């Protein structure tokens, strides 16, 4: 028995109505991402990569075309089913960290498990394990305002992996970080991928994309190129 691909998009279109003008943010995208892949989705602003991220993350639904997430067809799912899918199958990491303010690191990481109705004791144990994985065991009871950007993003990564999702979806995860913190966060993603997790990054920085194993380029809502990152290019692209 083979596992279904984590992401399977077939002819996905997403159209926004802006007044009288219909904007085609995605114009027939087909893409398959298998389990264990480490993919960067690249593109300039306006290329449709944010829409792509919203569709892949089940925050938005395609206007046309079909999308299977981990074998589940998300078409025709109602709102509560979508939120359940987001909770169980996807771990989000955002550019602006998006931690819940005035809430400790530990509580932030526990939150997805709380929504999944995991018992408190197990919640605590899994959150601690996730925070240990990102190397943040000393800041458990700090609130976001008391942490640096790098630390906040590591908490966000811990929150993304705590539910053991099929997919880790990161939207410009290093966009608000200095280069050292960026490097740290990328190393964590690499580590997670090595451990077998599927990671999809959305970025416009080629340096960041170079950490991945496959780069999908978007332009005007279409896939421009989709190629593996060669070892040579990886060595040349990566700084230091």
């Amino acid at each position, binding site marked *: 028995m083979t596992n279904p691909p984590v992401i399977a998009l077939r002819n996905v279109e997403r159209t926004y109505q802006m007044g009288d003008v219909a904007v085609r943010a995605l114009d027939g995208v087909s893409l398959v991402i298998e389990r264990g892949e480490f993919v960067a989705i690249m593109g300039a602003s306006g290329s449709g990569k944010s829409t792509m991220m919203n569709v892949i993350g089940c*925050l938005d639904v395609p206007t046309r075309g079909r999308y299977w997430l981990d074998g589940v067809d998300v078409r025709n799912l109602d709102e*509560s089913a979508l*939120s*359940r899918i987001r*909770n169980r199958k996807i771990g989000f990491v955002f550019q602006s960290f998006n931690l*819940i303010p005035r809430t400790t690191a530990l*509580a932030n990481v526990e939150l*997805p498990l709380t*929504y999944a109705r995991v018992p408190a004791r197990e919640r605590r144990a899994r959150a601690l394990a996730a925070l240990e994985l990102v190397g943040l065991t000393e800041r458990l009871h700090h609130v976001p305002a008391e942490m640096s950007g790098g630390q906040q993003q590591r908490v966000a990564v811990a929150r993304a992996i705590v539910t053991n999702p099929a997919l880790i979806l990161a939207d410009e995860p290093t966009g608000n970080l200095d280069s050292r913190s960026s490097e740290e966060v990328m190393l964590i993603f690499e580590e997670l991928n090595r451990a077998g997790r599927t990671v999809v990054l959305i970025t416009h920085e080629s340096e960041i994309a170079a950490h991945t194993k496959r780069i999908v380029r978007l332009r005007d809502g279409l896939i421009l190129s989709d190629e593996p990152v060669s070892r040579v290019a990886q060595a040349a692209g990566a700084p230091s």
Partner: protein
Amino acid sequence: MNILDDLRGALRGLSANKLRSALTVLGIFIGVGAVIIVVGYGNGSSQAVQNRIKALGTNTITIVNRGRFGRGPATAGSTQTQSATITPQDVSSMQDQNQAPDILSVSPVLSSSATATYSSASDSSVTITGTTPTYLQAEDFQVEAGSSITASDVTNHAQVAVIGQDLLSDLYATGQNPIGSNVFFGSARFRVVGVLADKGSSAGADENNVAIIPYTTAEDYITGYTNNFTELIVEAKNAKDVNAAENEADDILASANQTSVANLPFTAINEATLLSTSASTSSTFTVLLTVIAAVSLLVGGIGIMNIMLVTVTERTREIGIRKAIGAPRSAILTQFLIEAVMLSLIGGVAGVIVGVVGTNFKIDGVKPIPTPESIIGAFLVTVVVGVFFGFYPASRAASLRPVDALRYE
């Protein structure tokens, strides 16, 4: 979602904007406090009226000769009414069971003010009430020590007195037994035979600053011979017979004075009726005030709704994050609903505390008595207000689309 987490989260949310939360809470706080105090005040004043009615004796009618108060005759041009009198003969007619079957007792009253002296102590303006023994029962006076005046004291013109609590404390040293001592009212000497129990000053006039003596003796030494009583205390056999008793007394007085009942210059004061009228007036006021207080609860609720809408807008992004990581609608709804209910509950609890503390103070001479119903009721209403006015903002938060909410800056 764990309710404890929700509560903690709500508390964090509220304490992030302390001043704003406090101001929002104020509306509910004032509403609840006002409801409790107003209802307590209404309850207290109706209780006070009830006590007064009880103190007066519910079965009694006081028949007052209006002429004595200088209010003139009942009918203009009727000279006869002016000289109408209440005589001992009328009193014995009323005591006749055939003529007045509904009257239990009739106590004539001759009252005057005098200065009381005992050894070196004195007390001016003591109300000297000359009457018969039935007066004490009709007017609900209790004899605390010694004995009452007796019927034979009345026939024998005995110089005996039963004194009130004020007189006791003004004339005698603490602990001194006044029974058997001689006290002067004006220049006449009386032997104290009994002491009245404290009656309070609830009926307006101080009913403790009195001395009760036989009316015959009062005629002899205090008022002078008049053959005309100041007033009559008519006690009916039953509370429901009060009106019948009043009619019988009126008929006897009218025929004795050879006039019609309508022409009698006497006013029959049925105090119980008077007081219940005033009680119902005050209860109308209480209802009105309670409505106003309840309106302020409503206004407080609108304040909560307003601030919750602001909160939801401010925290749109947070809602987006929560939805992105899988919060179901119900979790968001509960979160904001709990926050709204917590706001109104804080106001409610503070209002209950202030209300209960506030009812310890007298307002306009009335001691408010808080009712458990008003406290529990006001408290429950705050929960309802919180849920009601919190629901719309919370459902607005819950129905935000995650994409839009996340994009919100």
